[in-house]
């Protein structure tokens, strides 16, 4: 969306000369014959001006995954070699079935030491944004810690929390919330094996 021409305003006090008002000193009779006086108001003229708004077009953008990785991720996911794990509400402890899933993930990771992974922590929308970021961070790290305990090299695993920012399901019901409380595994690079 282009908002060129949008402007940040700055008020510059330029006209400092006092200008007498257009209403001259005058006297008027009120109904009760009380004399009232409306004295001239000294009027400062303020020049209200603008400064141009900086463009946002040049802002750095995210780098996508290397070309072949989206297809690779799709493939290992479809074959069930890597799968996501799910959490209870406001929890980051691993359920029994999550441990089973992580054991399979660890197997694939150990068989492919050339692959680097990012573990994304996700939350449902019911908490606050900032607290969910912290909670998603805990979920991703709980998954990472367990994988490391199974022998996966921790240097190949990065964690990132998305909190409630990247929901997998956007409906307002418990089955949807459950889908959003997860750790999601993505191949995000290849190790320099040299």
């Amino acid at each position: 969306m282009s908002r060129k021409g949008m402007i940040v305003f700055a008020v510059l006090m330029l006209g400092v000369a006092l200008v007498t008002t257009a209403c001259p000193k005058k006297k008027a009779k009120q109904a009760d014959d009380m004399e009232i006086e409306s004295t001239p108001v000294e009027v400062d003229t303020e020049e209200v001006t603008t400064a141009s708004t900086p463009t946002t077009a040049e802002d750095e953008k995210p780098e996508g995954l290397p070309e072949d990785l989206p297809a690779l991720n799709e493939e290992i996911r479809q074959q069930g070699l890597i799968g996501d794990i799910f959490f209870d509400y406001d929890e980051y402890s691993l359920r029994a079935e999550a441990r089973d899933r992580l054991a399979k993930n660890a197997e694939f990771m150990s068989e492919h030491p050339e692959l680097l992974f990012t573990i994304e922590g996700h939350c449902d929308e019911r908490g606050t944004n900032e607290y969910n970021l912290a909670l998603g961070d805990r979920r991703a790290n709980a998954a990472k810690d367990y994988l490391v305990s199974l022998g996966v090299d921790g240097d190949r695993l990065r964690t990132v929390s998305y909190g409630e920012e990247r929901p997998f399901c956007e409906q307002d019901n418990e089955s949807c919330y459950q889908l959003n409380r997860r750790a999601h595994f993505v191949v995000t690079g290849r190790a320099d094996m040299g």
Partner: protein
Amino acid sequence: MIRLRPPTPLFSLFLGILLLAPSLGSQEVPPREPAAQEEGDDVTLVIEEGQTARIRLAFPEPEIRGDLSPEAREARRELESALRSDLQSTGIFQIQGPEALSVVEPTGDRGRDFEQYRSLGNEAVLLAEIYQEGSDRIVLEGRVYDLASGQSILGKRYRGSFDLARRIAHTFTDEIVLYFTGRRGIALTSIAFVSDRSGEKEIYLMDYDGRNVRPITGHQSISMAPDWSPSGNAVAYVSYYGGFPGIYLVNLETGEKEPVITEGSLNSAPDFSGDGSHLVFSRSLAGNTEIFSVARDGSDLRRLTRSPGIDTNPSWSPSGRQIAFTSSRAGNPHIYVMDAEGTNLQRITFEGTYNDGAAWSPDGSKIAYATRRRGRQFDIAVTDLALMETKVLTRRMAGSQESPTWSPDGRRIAFASAVGGRTQIRVVPAEGGESELLTADGNNMAPDWSGHPN
């Protein structure tokens, strides 16, 4: 609480009117209030919630001088409409507009006209004149008169291009508020916020009334958690464009972005210190978020909390001496306050099952935050730190409210309101009352109110 301090001797007359307003017959001339004048700067008037001790201001239709081009007519319309809504939203006036004043028959004699305004119960009148200058500029001359004495008490002339018509109204409004209350108005302040209107979450600015929206980031990633620098020339924010949430600054004059801290997997929730030299924020240490502070150039990184629970969303007190934050160290998320060095921890909230998003009032006496007390909805609550008394502001509102931020005069709180899967920014009087919608395009959240412009 509104503190009214007379900036000029004439003001004491208005203070007198204000003090007497509830019992004032509409046509009585209030006597001078000698006590108020003697008390001088120490006069404090507390307006309780629901009390309408407002200055009764007549604001007839502005006089148009000369011919206006079509563009100038549009600018005039914008200017008048902004001036009326600005004055209305100050909360210090009870305004009679052209409709209520239609019974006034202009006599060409200011004194007689004033008597007519006064007989309708008004205490002051705002007379505005608007005219075009050259091909592209509009001028407002505004004068306020005390109807009891007939004396003019404030006069201003503003000149600017047509697109600044609202800006001119805001500038004049703040001048009027300063005159009547001794404190700056907020009509020239801005709110930074997050919007997904472009498809991705970016940081935007808008005027205090929700108008003049403009983006300040274009990362096409997730950008969030904006926080104004105290001087108003930069906004700190969080962005994922580097792959992980890091803290950046946008220079509002040049548009340049610079990183503050991006190392690590999670840096979030930045909040400037009052002197603008440091930021406090939350940072993950292998799955445990703790509160840290850092200089705005990324140096001087200090860890302030040590607890196994989640510690996040810190907010520096206006004095700089304390930091409020959210912690789950006692189980559920609650608001705590510690000294800026991380010592002297004090728990602030005990009610509700989930509290987050602490925001200090500008005078440092209160903290606003989101609290969960009914089902899974959040409400905005304000806790008075001296009395340790809490008031829930949004109890009767639909949906879930979070991310409160105070206007720099402490009289309003903006927040994000999620209703039916859509999130918009609303503003409510800090004492409670009806809320107003500020945004409509896309989802809009995480408001942060600027300070007064320099």
